[in-house]
């Protein structure tokens, strides 16, 4: 069983039960600490809930990081 989710605008097929934490791990070069945040379906998912937040079929995930700006 797999689920298809959209991560930063790209569709990804993930094993059923995939969590926010597993998506972060799958991103190459993703910094683990400060500077990264995640929203699922337009709602911020706090870091502490990344390992337990499972992604449903069709979920939209935005993973953001610090860039120069302002």
């Amino acid at each position, binding site marked *: 069983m797999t689920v298809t989710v959209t991560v930063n605008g790209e569709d990804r097929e993930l094993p059923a039960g995939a969590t926010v934490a597993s998506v972060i791990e799958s991103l190459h070069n993703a910094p683990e600490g400060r500077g990264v945040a995640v929203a699922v379906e337009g709602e911020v998912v706090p870091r502490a809930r990344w390992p337990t937040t499972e992604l449903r079929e069709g979920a939209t995930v935005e993973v*953001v*990081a610090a*860039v*120069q700006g302002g």
Partner: protein
Amino acid sequence: MTAPLTIAGRDFASRLILGTGGFTNHEVLASALEASGTQMCTVALRRLDPAARGSILDVLDAAGVEVLPNTAGCYTARDAIITAQLAREAFDTAWIKLEVIGDDRTLLPDGVELLAAAEALVDDGFTVLPYTTDDPILARRLEDVGCAAVMPLGSPIGSGMGIRNPYNISIMIERAGVPVILDAGVGTASDATLAIELGCDAVLCASAISRAHDPAAMARAIRLGVEAGWLARQAGRIPRRRYAEASTPDEGLPVFDTSSQ
């Protein structure tokens, strides 16, 4: 050189806040940070780029400056609120430079969306520093909903046009109970000086430094411009007058025309 700037109960020795947008690389940013003497810098949030090398946070940490996340690129209160919440999660700070713009050509703030977002974020426990127009009434409304400062533009972002309406900025300052930070429009050091002379509590500057031919030199120039403005304001300028007023006394002036004696 200047007295501390206090925002929401926190003191900053520097009255110059740096925007980090537009620097060609992290080394140039680091040199400008050092030359500017700043203690707080804005950063933005964008989709994670797996190919990105090195985080801007490492540069800011090495320089010992605080992170002020912004909501650059947001057009609605809803997007700005979510972005602020993401920033709080990413940077462990409840401070947010709130930007809600109206269109991508002028990048002017959308006052209606801005006020709505500011109110919601203050209620959510954020320390909100809104980028706003030079409208004293909107500034007062932003203060009324609990913003920790107001950040009026001098002219559009990146325009380098300086302060187009110093009278509005002055009125805003006279009425404000929170710090007024000039944000956007500074093109060179004298613009920063004028802002502080007018009574602004601080200046936020990005493009003028990051897009200068020599960013570190311009960072130092604007730092000194801020300090010059501060000293001049404390010193108290002379009133403007339409006609000359001699600085040399007439008394004791010798007379050379003997025919009149």
